[in-house]
């Protein structure tokens, strides 16, 4: 069953992809969706057996590469961390599969889309069940590939292609770091097998490597390299630029890949490597600082965006920042807890946004929406639930997980902890603000769309709304249900997590987070309320205010609107110089020098040699016999000379 849960989506993907002419649109939908649903059902059982039954298992499928000391098997590792991830991935994925029936109903290549979705699901499952780093890398690259294919799914759209390439290239930077990290681990430990690495980790806690003549702390270097990989995949500050552009893909894709699952792979990976990170305090502090900065940065940008999907995309970026600074203060469980709740409410928000876009005849600009809540009541309610959960309003899922992260950061204390806490609080304020800005602008006020669009507004079909409702259940209850297990009292929590998360003795920040001053507990709530209130003032009571404010602080506004000029900066620093360099090398170096001497020259020489070899083949028997005799004669002579 464990194996079936992982491989069903792959089989479905192959069937839907390669035999699309046989099974047809509906067949592809049924096959992929059924198989993912079956996986989800099995994931529930796995969760009960592995996580709640405290019965972690590793299933070795077969040996893959054996080369000297390098030994890699295909194996599925199931512990609590994996069980949680498998549950999240399959449940969100099954919702998205179902939703796509409706959302993609007008598309002309449905089987291809469904096949990609299932392929992604399989790769993600491969990633989270990996028992060694090479297999994890396989899944890591696999989800990257599926993400690339799905962002560029509408390949006739130029922007979609550009976005797909951007996602691929930016991720490559991260993957390079990840690969180097894996190499580093292999050099240090001589293995890529996770359990072995974790066992050996304490022995190497103080190992060092000499690089550029300077001695470095090996564990820190490895952890930083791995974190670069995580930054790429999880869109952390610096390598985040691909995520908002990735919204060019179909909305179900954004929900599944760019909100709920793939982007959290980085968080998962770092949590998985907790036994190493715990030994590298510098790396942990870096993770916390980068995470906190991302949470803050993305929230500021989210406040001024006008594209409904981009707002949610920046929000995702910001929430991922939360998860990372939680990890940075050793609150791994809180990070994974937030990952879980976030998967539900963010998928809900994205699919809700998709429902809005669907209703508005593919309009995505919230300035052209407004006043539609009466027409799409169900979607409206779902967006409310999603926003409430995102902003962390009490008793919705986000409240439990996000507050736990902020409390952990406060409890961790020290410079890094308070830094993360401060930025986290600021981000929480903005999160509430942009969430309600989105809600108010989209659904309330006067309709700003033209009459044609307004007359076509319709609630989405049940096949789209049912997944919304199911996800909303997760967005409401997952926090409350999971709180005790994931981040509750030390004994319940440690029993639940088993050996999946490793903490240095005395570093249990989550335990400390249960004993912090009341004001720090209440502060997130206060700022959330303030954020909602501010949004209400801006967009309902005094709609002219935002414009005035933007005018008064024009530089600040533009700075935020242009996403802190990251794209422009990268364009200036990396893209243009490399284009110029590339052009110079292409025209001058490659065209003139290398092509002249190399390919063209070598090609000419090759053809010439080929012609000569052909000439030797005269077809005459005595020529052939002669060549053989000469061959023997030459060899014999060679030995005679050598011997003599």
């Amino acid at each position, binding site marked *: 069953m464990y194996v079936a849960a992982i491989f069903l989506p792959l089989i479905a993907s192959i069937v839907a992809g390669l035999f699309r002419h046989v099974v047809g649109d509906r067949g592809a939908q049924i096959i992929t969706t059924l198989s993912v649903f079956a996986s989800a059902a099995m994931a529930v059982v796995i969760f009960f057996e592995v996580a709640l039954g405290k019965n972690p298992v590793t299933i070795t499928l*077969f*040996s893959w590469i054996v080369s000297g000391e390098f030994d890699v098997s295909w194996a599925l590792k199931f512990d609590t961390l994996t069980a949680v991830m498998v549950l999240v991935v399959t449940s969100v994925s099954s919702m998205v599969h179902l939703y796509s029936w409706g959302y993609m109903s007008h598309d002309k290549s449905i089987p291809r889309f469904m096949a990609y979705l299932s392929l992604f699901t399989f790769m993600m499952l491969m990633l989270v069940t990996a028992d060694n780093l090479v297999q994890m890398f396989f899944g890591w690259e696999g989800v990257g590939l599926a993400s690339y294919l799905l962002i560029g799914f509408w390949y006739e759209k130029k922007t979609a292609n550009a976005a797909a390439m951007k996602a691929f290239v930016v991720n490559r930077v991260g993957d390079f770091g990840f690969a180097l990290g894996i190499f580093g681990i292999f050099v240090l430990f001589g293995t890529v097998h996770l359990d072995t690495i974790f066992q050996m980790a304490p022995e190497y806690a103080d190992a060092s490597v000499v690089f550029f003549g300077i001695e470095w702390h090996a564990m820190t270097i490895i952890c930083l390299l791995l974190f670069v990989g995580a930054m790429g995949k999880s869109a952390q500050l610096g390598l985040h630029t691909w995520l908002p552009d990735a919204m060019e893909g179909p909305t179900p894709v954004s929900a599944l890949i760019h909100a709920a699952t793939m982007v959290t792979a980085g968080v998962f990976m770092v949590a998985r490597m907790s036994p190493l990170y715990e030994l590298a305090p510098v790396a942990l502090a870096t993770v916390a600082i980068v995470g906190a900065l991302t949470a803050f940065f993305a929230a500021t940008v989210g406040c001024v965006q006008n594209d409904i999907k981009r707002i949610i995309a920046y929000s995702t970026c910001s929430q991922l920042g939360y998860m990372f600074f939680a990890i940075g203060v050793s609150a791994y469980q809180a990070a994974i807890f937030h990952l879980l709740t976030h998967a539900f409410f963010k998928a809900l928000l994205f699919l809700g946004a998709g429902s809005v876009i669907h209703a508005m005849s593919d309009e995505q600009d919230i300035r052209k929406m407004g006043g539609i809540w009466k027409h799409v009541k169900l979607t409206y309610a779902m967006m409310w639930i999603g926003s409430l959960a995102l902003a962390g309003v009490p008793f919705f899922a986000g409240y439990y997980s996000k507050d736990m992260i902020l409390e952990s950061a406060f409890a961790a204390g020290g410079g890094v902890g308070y830094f993360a806490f401060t930025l986290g609080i600021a981000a929480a304020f903005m999160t509430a603000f942009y969430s309600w800005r989105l809600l108010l602008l989209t659904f309330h006020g006067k309709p700003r769309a033209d009459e044609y669009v307004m007359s076509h507004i319709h609630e989405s079909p049940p096949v789209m709304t049912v997944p919304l409702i199911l996800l909303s259940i997760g967005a409401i209850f997952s926090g409350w249900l999971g709180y005790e297990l994931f981040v509750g009292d030390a004994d319940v929590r440690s029993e639940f997590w088993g050996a999946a998360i490793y903490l240095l003795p005395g570093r249990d920040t989550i335990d400390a987070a249960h004993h912090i001053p009341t004001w720090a507990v209440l502060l997130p709530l206060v700022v959330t309320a303030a954020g909602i209130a501010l949004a209400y003032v801006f967009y309902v009571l005094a709609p002219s205010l935002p414009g005035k404010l933007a005018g008064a602080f024009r530089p600040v506004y533009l700075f935020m609107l242009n996403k802190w000029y990251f794209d422009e900066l990268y364009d200036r620093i990396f893209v243009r110089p490399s284009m110029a360099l590339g052009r110079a090398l292409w025209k001058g170096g490659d065209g003139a020098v290398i092509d002249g001497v190399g390919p063209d020259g070598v090609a000419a020489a090759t053809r010439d040699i*080929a012609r000569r070899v052909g000439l030797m083949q005269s077809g005459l028997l005595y020529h052939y016999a002669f*060549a053989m005799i000469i*061959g*023997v004669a030459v*060899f014999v002579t*060679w*030995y005679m000379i050598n*011997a003599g």
Partner: protein
Amino acid sequence: MTALGNIAPAAPEVFMAIAGMALLMIGVFQKGDATKLVGWLAVGVLVVAGFLVLMAAPETVTAFNGQFISDRFAIFAKVLVLGASALSLVLAMVWLAQEDMKRYEFSVLVVFATLGMMMMVSANNLMALYLGLELQSLALYVMAAFKRDSVRSTEAGLKYFVLGSVASGLLLYGASLIYGFSGSTSFPVLAEVLSHGTPTGVIVGLVFVMAGLAFKVSAVPFHMWTPDVYEGAPTPVTAFFAVAPKIAALALFVRVMMGPFADLVDQWQQVIVLIAILSMLVGAFGAILQSNIKRLMAYSSIGHMGFALMGLAAASPNGVRGLLIYLAIYIFMNIGTFAIILSMRQKGRAVEGVADLAGLSRTMPGMATALTIFMFSMAGIPPLAGFFAKFYVFMAAIEAGFFTMAVIGVLSSAVGAYYYLRIVKVMWFDEPVDTFDRPAMTNQVVLWGSAAMMFVLFIWAAPLIAGAQMAALSLFPG
């Protein structure tokens, strides 16, 4: 002990010999056309022989007064030979039906040729070696000329026969020199004698023997017959030539070099390195200008033999392991490709030009995809099995310190990639001229089975590697 001694280790060979004669009888006495019946029975015989081989005890045992040896290496090579023979016979049956050739002798010849190959693989004496080699060769000469009414086929048969006789002559001469200078033809005795010093005459004899064997694996400079024979012989015969005899001859090559002449490694290594390099280069460059796909495959197989010989040149367990892995993967690449070549028929007539493949991706996307897989695999591009095939021989060569050879190998495989990719280009980017007939079901099964193996052997390589490892180690006592 009876007069024959213990013949149990040779049970598969005995079975094949009896079955081959029985098949001949069935063919003679069957009323009407026996081609199909004898053909499938022959496939059955090969499969049963395969099981007999697999069931044999994996220990090293000898029979026929030490003339015959059975060990893990022999078992591994025999399974490959039998598999290759069976697959190419299946392809040939379709062809016989398509060409309306009612000659059951074809299958009988395959059985006897395969018997010869199995004898070669198990040879433990220069005489047994010659016996197996000639049994194989005589059957192959007839097969090359099998289409008696075709000038090209008879020319191919005659060329192969004359040059093959020259090679046999060289080998025999070498064997007699070795016998003359060492006093024995038995491999273990030779090994014992040669460990106490090497007369020059033995080295000269060894060079002659190597020349004879190099002819059989069509290594440069004893390769000249290959393109002509491959082009002229009927296509299923070419398919057979390209796999089974190559495996048997290389296995024999390994056994002779690693067995009796293990102490002369410094001497023969130089020759093997040289012919490996030359084969890789000729295989790469020779194919570039070919427009006939069978001729192209001839050069391709010369090149592949060069790569496989790299494993022998390394003269280490890892090298032999790499060679065996290479051969196993080589079978599937070649059988798959030939299944496609055999399916290249326009209006009931076989065509064999590279240009005939133009636009195949549009007329027959499935076949084009499969051929693309084989071409990429032959070029050694991951994630296909052909990559591991090259990887393991290169690794062995580098471990043995043959950097020059490895570099030349990499370069010639880059040149080789050119003509493999040219076929891909012709299929996917050129305008279609004419469509092929629908390929026979059997061909499709073989074709897709082989294509699947390209992935299976990449992802699930461990059993193959482990098997090859054990087979290789059985040649290195202690």
